[in-house]
């Protein structure tokens, strides 16, 4: 597998992985170390994993072993979860991460069904701090026209998502 694919898959899962590690160790420095070590081990041993679901599962399972190693060192000086609870949280985190990816895929599909002009207008309206009236002016529209177009785009997206959910 190319470095690019590996890091793309890793970045896709990094937030969920960090949340998972942090919820158990509750120490951002330790979380950083565990995440970095997990990435290094994965690259060393499982660089051929290209299937996103298999990659995610292996990533979390690898992190679990790093957490257990951390736990062995720290169990004396702080209250930590027992191994069964850690295993349970690992499985639960993998399941939730799978769902997150599924959701993102659905939203991406919905956005891709919009035409480019609408997608750009939607992004501009919702992702910038520029007031709608100023955006309308830049586009040579009246604010009312802009509001109406955004409403139309939202209705279209709503329909697309409901259609995708009902498949």
């Amino acid at each position, binding site marked *: 597998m190319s470095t690019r694919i590996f890091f793309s898959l890793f970045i896709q899962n990094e937030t969920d992985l960090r949340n998972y590690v942090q919820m158990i160790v*509750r120490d951002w420095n330790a979380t950083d170390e565990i995440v970095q070590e997990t990435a290094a081990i994965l690259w060393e041993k499982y660089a051929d994993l290209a299937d996103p679901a298999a990659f995610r599962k292996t990533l979390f399972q690898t992190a679990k072993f790093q957490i257990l190693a951390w736990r062995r060192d720290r169990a004396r000086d702080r209250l930590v979860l027992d191994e069964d609870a850690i295993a349970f949280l690992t499985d639960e985190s993998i399941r939730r991460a799978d769902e997150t990816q*599924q959701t993102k895929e659905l939203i*991406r599909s919905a956005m891709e069904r919009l035409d480019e002009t609408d997608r750009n207008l939607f992004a501009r309206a919702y992702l910038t701090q520029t007031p709608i009236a100023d955006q309308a002016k830049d586009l040579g529209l009246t604010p009312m026209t802009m509001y109406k177009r955004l409403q139309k785009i939202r209705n279209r997206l*709503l329909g697309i998502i409901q259609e995708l959910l009902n498949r």
Partner: protein
Amino acid sequence: MNTSNQSNPRTELIQKYLDQTISSDQLSEFQALLTSDATFRDQFFQFVQVDVAVEDMILFHNYMDQPNEPVEEGIPFAEGLIPEPPTALPSRFHLFVSRFLSLLGRPASSPVR
């Protein structure tokens, strides 16, 4: 991290766990709830999640800039009324989508924060 609703004993338990001020007995109770109570579990996961709206905003920007790049995509959503999810699909999945749908139903004059 959500720190609201401090008066709720379960929320307090989660907060103590995260703050590492939890006692040994409380940790046992915490673990038991975590593995046996789906509502408590959802509550816990909500506490430890980063700000998904902010994260998705960044990802969406990436998508708009480079739609053919293999990056994660998402779009921001606003808090709103969340309809009951159909039981056939995972609840978190529907929660996320429902929030997104609630955004779509908002007036155009109140874009995402």
